[in-house]
C-alpha cells in the first residue's frame, strides 16, 4: 500500500465519523436493551411505582409455580415442530420438484415465494377466513365438496385444533424461502458426482438419500436452525388470530410475555420471560448443531 493511500485510510477522525451513527443506534436499540431486560428481570415493577428488587423470584415463579408458562412452553414446542416440518420438508420437496422442471422455473420460484412478502396482519386475516365456519370458509367449503363435510369445524375455536390452525399460516408463508435456499444447495451439486452414481446403477431415491442428502446437509442444518429460531419468536399471527385463546390452547411464550408486560403491566416478570426466550433460542441452535454433527459419523 502506498504511503498517501495508507495515510488516507488511517484517518481516525473519519473512521469515527463513519462508524458512530451505526454504532450508537445499534447499541441503544439492540444491545443495551438486552442488558436492561436482564436487569429488570430481578425486579417487581409495574412501570409506574418504585422498582422493588426481588432477586430470582421472577425466575422461581416462572419455572416453579406458573402453569401458564409451562403450557405456553409446550405449545411453543408443538408450534415449532409444525412450522419446521412444513418449511423444511415441504421446502425440500418443492426444491427437488423444481430441479426436475425445465420450463417456467423462474416464474414458479417467483410465485411460490410471494406469500413471504405480505404482512402478517393480512395473512392472519386471510386465514381467519380460510378457517371460518359461519359463514363457511375456504377450508370447510373444500371439505364439504370432497365429501368430508363431517370434518368441518370452527378451527380457531376448537380446543383440539386451534394450535395447529395458528401454526399453519406461519409455516405456509415461508415455505418458498426454504425452497429457494434448498434449491440453490441442490443445483450446486456437481453434475459429475450424479453421473458417476448413475453409472453405478443408483436409483433416484438412492441417489438422493446417499449422495445428495449428505452434500446438502450443511444447508439443511442452517435451514432447520433458521426455521426453529424463527418459530420460537413466533408472535404476530397467533397474537392477531386468537390472542392465545381459546383458554390458553394457543398461548406461546412470546404472546404470554407480551400480555404479561403490556396488559398486566408486570414488566419484571415479562422481562424474565424475554430473557428466557433469548436463552431458549441459543440453546436450540446449539442443540441442533450437536445433533446434526453427531449424525455425520
Amino acid at each position, binding site marked *: 500500500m502506498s504511503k498517501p493511500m*495508507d495515510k488516507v485510510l488511517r484517518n481516525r477522525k473519519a473512521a469515527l*465519523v463513519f462508524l458512530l*451513527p451505526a454504532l450508537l443506534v445499534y447499541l441503544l436499540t439492540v444491545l443495551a436493551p438486552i442488558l436492561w431486560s436482564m436487569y429488570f428481570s430481578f425486579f417487581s415493577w409495574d412501570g409506574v411505582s418504585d422498582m422493588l428488587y426481588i432477586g430470582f423470584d421472577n425466575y422461581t415463579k416462572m419455572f416453579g409455580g406458573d402453569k401458564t408458562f409451562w403450557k405456553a412452553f409446550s405449545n411453543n414446542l408443538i408450534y415449532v415442530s409444525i412450522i419446521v416440518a412444513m418449511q423444511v420438508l415441504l421446502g425440500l420437496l418443492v426444491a427437488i420438484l423444481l430441479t426436475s422442471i425445465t420450463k417456467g422455473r423462474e416464474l414458479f420460484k*417467483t410465485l411460490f415465494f410471494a406469500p413471504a412478502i405480505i404482512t402478517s396482519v*393480512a395473512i392472519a386475516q386471510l386465514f381467519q377466513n380460510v378457517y371460518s365456519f359461519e359463514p*363457511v370458509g375456504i377450508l370447510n367449503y373444500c371439505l364439504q365438496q370432497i365429501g368430508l363435510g363431517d370434518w368441518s369445524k370452527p378451527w380457531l375455536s376448537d380446543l383440539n385444533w386451534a394450535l395447529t390452525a395458528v401454526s399453519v399460516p406461519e409455516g405456509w408463508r415461508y415455505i418458498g424461502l426454504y425452497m429457494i435456499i434448498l434449491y440453490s444447495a441442490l443445483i450446486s451439486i456437481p453434475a459429475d458426482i450424479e453421473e458417476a452414481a448413475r453409472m453405478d446403477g443408483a436409483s433416484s431415491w438412492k441417489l438422493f438419500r446417499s449422495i445428495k442428502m449428505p452434500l446438502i446437509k450443511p444447508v439443511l442444518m442452517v435451514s432447520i436452525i433458521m426455521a426453529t429460531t424463527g418459530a420460537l419468536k413466533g408472535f404476530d399471527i397467533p397474537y392477531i388470530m386468537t390472542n392465545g385463546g381459546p383458554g390458553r390452547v394457543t398461548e406461546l411464550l412470546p404472546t404470554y410475555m407480551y400480555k404479561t408486560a403490556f396488559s398486566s403491566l408486570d414488566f419484571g416478570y415479562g422481562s424474565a420471560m424475554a430473557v428466557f426466550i433469548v436463552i431458549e433460542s441459543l440453546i436450540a441452535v446449539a442443540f441442533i448443531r450437536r445433533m446434526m454433527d453427531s449424525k455425520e459419523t
Partner: protein
Amino acid sequence: MMKISGYSKAVLLVVSFALLVIQVYPLVWVFISSFKGPNDFSGDNPLSLPSQYTFDNYFNVWSKGNLGTYFSNSIIVAVTTIVLVILFSAMAAFVIEKMSFKWSQSVLFLFLCGIMIPIQVVLIPLFILYNKIGIINTLASLILPQVGFALPISIYLFVSFYKYISNEIMEAAVMDGCGVYQVFWRMIFPLSRNTIVTVVVMNLIFVWNEFIFANTFIHDLKSRTIPVGLMDYIGQYGLTDWGATFAAISITTIPTMVVYFMFNKSVISGMTAGATKG
C-alpha cells in the same frame, strides 16, 4: 439436473402444480374477493367469483377508514428508516472492511451478534425508555429500533461487497488527490449500487410489514402504520366486514407486490440473507 422417468415425472408435475395453487391461490382469492358486493359474502360458496365486480369496497375503505393517514405514516417510516440504514451501514462497513481501523473485526462481530437477537427482548426496555424521553406515539419510536435491527444484516451485505473492490482503484483516486470522504462518496458508495438495491428492497418489505413495534409503541390513531391499521377491519366476535378487509389488504399489499415483481432477485437474495432476523 435430476433425471426422472415419464410416469413419476407426471406425478411430480401434478404435485408441484397443486403446491403452487396452495401457495398462490389464497392471494389471488383475496384480490378477487375485494371486488365482491355484500350479497356475495353471505352466499355459501366462498370460492365463487363476484356476481358483479364492484369498486365499492375500495371507495369505502379509502373514504371511511384512516387508510390515507396510515399510508403516509408507513411511507415516512419506510423512507426514513431505509435512508438511515443505507447511509449508516454503508459507512460503517467501509470503516470495517477498507480503513485501517484497529477494532474493525471486533466491531463487525458485535454487529453480527445482532442477527441472533429476537425482537421481543428489547420491547419492554425500549417502551420504558421511549416513554421517558417522550417519543412514544411518534414515528421516531418506530424508525430508531428498525434501523438498529436492520443494521447487522445490511452491514454484513456491504462488507461482503466491499471485499471485491480492489485497493488499486482506491489507490488511483488517492493519487488524484481524493481524501477519504471523496473516496467513499464519489467512488465506493456509487459502486455499491447493486448492494444498495438489495438492502433497500429487503428493508422496504420488512419495514412496510413491521407489526410488533408499531403495535407496542403507537396507540394514537394518527401515528399508526398500515399493518396495525389493517387490524381495524377485524370486528369483534368475528363480525368482520370482509369486503372492506380484502380491499384494504389489496391496497396495502400492492406496493410490496410491485417492488417484488420488479426486483424479485434482490428481494429473494436479501430475504434469504435476512431471514434469520425475521
